């Protein structure tokens, strides 16, 4: 056994990162508590505790366990899932502007929802599970299409080709979306645009159980592959030189990213900005080693979406602002501040 000696600089860096991760966790706990307390009916902290331990009134129990908790859990899961998916995509495509949307995930899911709404007169008359399943399928089909066009048997996936085909497929789908959406009646249009703005509309435990398997399997898988992501982010030729099976790893990681983002988008509607900005945000906080960056990205994403959803429920009570909009409104200024302040 050989002990590893860290240089003082490395030690300082690790200590700072540990502090960052710990404070992200603390903030999530804080947001969690505040979010449980946010809504039309107030629950005092004491009531909260009492209800959590099973001795609240029936009404308090209903509000907390059936309305607020599932929504909070869903916010945390989508935040983490979208952010990590974006981080992986940016690393593999080596492009700062890549996000899950670039593979057609948001556009595909949006089109599926739109077609569904256009054919059913109202979303309420259809079975509740149909919409997320369709959105998921739409996201998957669009991403698969981009993959299949971009993949070459001998050379694998070139990041450039992937982005180009992503742009093309996205534009094609958006064109269809425009044409169909002009034929909708105003109520249908309102429903679709609220969906596209990222209102977290899957709100009960069944959506949590539908989403959880994806997150529980794929998130640890991506964390486990952090070293590979590091290597792949150096570029194909460098990664091959370092002994990575570039083709296989790229395909697996991209599939994981699509799985994560697709399942999140199906439940939340398109909250594209989380996947785009959180990886940059986290990198400015903890540096670019993916072993620490990926967990930090997941935490930051979860925090961002939870705070956004809580604010969205709170600001215009009793109506709601879609979380996707609030994410942009609070995430963008903070990110701009980091951008202006940091040197790299």
């Amino acid at each position, binding site marked *: 056994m050989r002990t590893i000696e860290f240089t003082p600089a490395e030690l300082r860096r690790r200590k700072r990162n540990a502090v960052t991760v710990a404070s992200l966790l603390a903030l999530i706990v804080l947001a969690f508590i505040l979010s449980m307390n946010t809504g039309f009916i107030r629950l005092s902290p004491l009531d909260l505790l009492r209800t959590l331990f099973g001795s609240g009134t029936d009404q308090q129990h209903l509000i907390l366990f059936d309305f607020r908790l599932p929504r909070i859990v869903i916010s945390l899961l989508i935040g983490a899932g979208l952010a990590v998916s974006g981080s992986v995509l*940016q690393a593999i*495509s*080596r*492009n*700062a*502007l*890549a996000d899950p949307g*670039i593979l057609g995930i948001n556009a595909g899911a949006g089109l599926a929802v739109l077609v569904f709404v256009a054919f059913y007169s109202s979303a309420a008359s259809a079975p509740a599970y149909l919409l997320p399943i369709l959105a998921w399928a739409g996201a998957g089909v669009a991403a698969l299409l981009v993959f299949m*066009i*971009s993949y070459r048997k001998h050379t694998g996936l070139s*990041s*450039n*080709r992937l*982005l*180009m*085909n992503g*742009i*093309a*497929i996205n*534009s*094609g789908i*958006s*064109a*269809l979306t*425009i*044409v169909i*959406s*002009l034929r*909708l009646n*105003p109520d249908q*249009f*309102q429903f679709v*645009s*609220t969906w596209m*703005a990222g209102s977290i509309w899957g709100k009960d435990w069944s959506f949590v159980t539908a989403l959880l398997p994806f997150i529980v399997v794929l998130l640890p898988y991506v964390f486990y592959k952090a070293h590979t992501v590091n290597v792949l*982010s150096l*570029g*194909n030729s460098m990664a091959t030189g370092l002994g990575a099976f570039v083709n296989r790893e790229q395909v697996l990681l991209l599939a994981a990213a699509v799985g994560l983002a697709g399942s999140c988008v199906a439940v939340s509607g398109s909250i594209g*900005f989380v996947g*785009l*900005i959180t990886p*940059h945000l986290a990198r400015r906080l903890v540096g670019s080693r993916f072993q620490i960056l990926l967990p930090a990205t997941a935490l930051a994403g979860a925090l961002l979406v939870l705070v956004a959803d809580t604010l969205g429920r709170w600001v215009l009570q009793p109506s709601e*602002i*879609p979380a*996707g*909009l*609030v*994410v*942009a*409104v609070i*995430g*963008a*200024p903070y*990110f*701009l501040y980091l*951008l*202006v*302040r*940091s*040197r790299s």
Partner: protein
Amino acid sequence: MFLFDTDWRFNIVKSIAQHHPQHDPAEASREDPAEALNQIYSRPRTAMLVIFFGLLLLAAGVGISVSFGAADIGFLTVWEAVFRYNPDLTSHQIIQELRLPRVLGCVMVGASFGVSGAIMQGMTRNPLADSGLLGLNAGAGFALAICFAFFPGLPYTYLILFSFVGAALSAVIVFALGSVAKGGLTPVRLVLAGVTLSALFTAFSEGLQLYFRIGQDMAFWFAGGVAGTRWMHLKIMSPWIGLALAGAIALSRSVTLLSLGEDIAKGLGLRSGPVKAACTVIVVVLAGSAVSVVGAVSFVGLLAPHVARKLVGIDYRWIIPASGVLGAVLVTFADLAARTVHPPYETPIGALIALIGVPFFLYLANKERREL
């Protein structure tokens, strides 16, 4: 640092090396900057052909556009309407007041999107870049949302004016944010600031759209495209666009240098700060006015430069004019289709641009080529 697709540029350097095995461009640059620039892979003869036939196609497109439409008007009448205008004839009025300004608007808008997209891609060295990256589309959209929500019924000309102000303002904010940062304006920072500000403005305007329920009105506005263009708008726009296009051509050599990377550009004696500022002004004028007239059909700005690059090589002295011509052709024919597919209704021009552009784009992006 993986923020940019290094393969893209690496391939270019590689291709230079392949075509001129004895000349390393960095080596040559130390002796003579002009020599280094000549090493950049380009196909001047193809480029001239592309531009020539592009212009021919454009002229044909303009001619067809003017004579086809909901009301059928023969070529002879068109000719007379243009050169011997008689204000008493309805057909002459249709040509002069509706179709001619509309088709000229298409040409201007297409060329503007094409050229500004090419400049953005060269300047930021990012194949995903277009004029939307400076926050132009989002800024224009936000301004429009404010107009629709708080001042319903504003005349068309004011809407155009306000959306241009919105576009220009957001570009100024993006540029300022990028510049005040420690370490100055880098391509990454410009791109990130632009994307972030776009997201912020888009969120604001989506919020307004949902709250005031004006989303579909705005969708119709954007889908309407160039339909409302009149001579007055062209008269206001054309001098600025003309100047900006001339500026783009004048700067094209510097854009080529920037596209090789900051270090190489500096090594070749380029003062990148002023060049970037000038490029940004040009992009704001071109794309800002185009966006405010037709809305965010920014796919033109992405597509035209990529097609141009595939055809003429990587020298922006050729890419910029070629993407201007290609963009104009694309928008003109898309608008022609928008009017004629389902008359007298208009099909959204953005959808048609994608419909025409996407298959072509897919074909080019997936064709195996050695040089890029």
